């Protein structure tokens, strides 16, 4: 009797162990496959956002044609000021930032224009914010940069820099360039809905920046 019970118990426990281990292994495999899948999706999103940022940076790189004729410097200023002489005044470049926002809405296929610019699909969780929009205008003769910094709220500062300068993402600036960086909330592993996202408020925010050199 005891022997029988022992055998029974042994058999039972062996079976349980076998199926439990199998299920756990399969669940692990599912997690791994999901992880690879989501990593690929995030990579694709990142590179398509980079693409859109580069296209937008280059789209708004309108220069002052008059100053180019005089000094051969490529100095970014608003498209309606192309025939005025460049001065280091942000009233000339405000238009560039306004254009950048318009262009970004189209290039990133955002849902709405104007703040907040938003996009919702199973990766994007909500509004897109402009962290930085920086114009580096290089004067070759004096070897100095006029740095116009904008963010979501608009114009922030104008500084003059010399020597080696670096964009916020660590890339070195060579000549006249435009740097832009945006951020947006990213949905996690299983693409939670907006409501859950707002309730927990522990989502991930992606910051993606791109430096583009303005050339002829």
């Amino acid at each position, binding site marked *: 009797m005891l022997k029988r019970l022992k055998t029974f118990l042994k058999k039972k426990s062996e*079976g349980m162990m*076998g*199926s439990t281990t*199998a*299920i756990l292994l*399969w*669940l692990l*495999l*599912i997690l791994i*496959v*999901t992880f*690879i*899948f989501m990593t*690929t*999706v995030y990579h*694709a999103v990142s*590179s*398509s956002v980079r*693409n859109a940022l*580069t*296209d937008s940076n*280059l*789209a*708004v*790189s*309108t220069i002052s*044609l008059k100053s180019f004729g005089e000094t051969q410097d490529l100095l970014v200023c608003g*498209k*309606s000021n*192309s025939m005025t002489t460049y001065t280091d005044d942000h009233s000339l470049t405000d238009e560039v930032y306004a*254009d950048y926002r*318009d*262009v970004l809405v*189209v*290039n990133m*296929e955002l849902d709405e224009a104007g703040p907040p610019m938003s996009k*919702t*699909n*199973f990766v994007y969780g909500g509004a897109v914010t402009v962290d930085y929009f920086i114009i580096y205008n290089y004067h070759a003769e004096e070897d100095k940069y006029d740095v116009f910094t904008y963010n979501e709220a608009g114009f922030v500062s104008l500084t003059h820099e010399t020597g080696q300068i670096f964009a916020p993402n660590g890339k070195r600036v060579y000549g006249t360039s435009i740097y832009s960086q945006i951020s947006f909330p990213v949905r996690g592993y*299983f*693409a939670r*809905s907006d409501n859950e996202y707002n309730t927990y408020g522990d989502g991930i925010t992606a910051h993606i920046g791109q430096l583009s050199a303005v050339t002829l």
Partner: protein
Amino acid sequence: MKKIKLWLKQKNEGSLYDFLPSLVIMLAVAIMFFAFLGIFSVVSLNEEVKQVVRSSMLLVETQGYLDSGDIAGIESQLTALGATDITVTVKDSGGNVLNGTTVAPYGDDIYFDLYCTIPAQSLNQAATNLFAMSFNNDGYELHIARKTISKC
């Protein structure tokens, strides 16, 4: 006889409990794997199409229009990637087609739209649910919209 019956019964139950969960999960993994493969091919083709779009954007910016020869060039590049049903439109902010007789002057907005179908076993995916997907064999319709400012 009774013993054999008992043994058979036990054996059956055991094997069912062992295999059923594994089979179900195996099926789930297989579906996910194919979904992954389908998405991966769409993603990589999408990247290549965007490279073609980038080079045509530079052309549009510098000359302010795309004539039928330029568009044929873009179409042949996309056809080489396997795309079909290609439509390229270049318009200014007033909706006029920029085809060479109409040119966008310096500082004007240019809207570029590309529609094409890339060959892929694609997934229809609901916007809010990762697992609400279904297979689709008739390719993936791609729309790439770009806006730029003329520099010609």
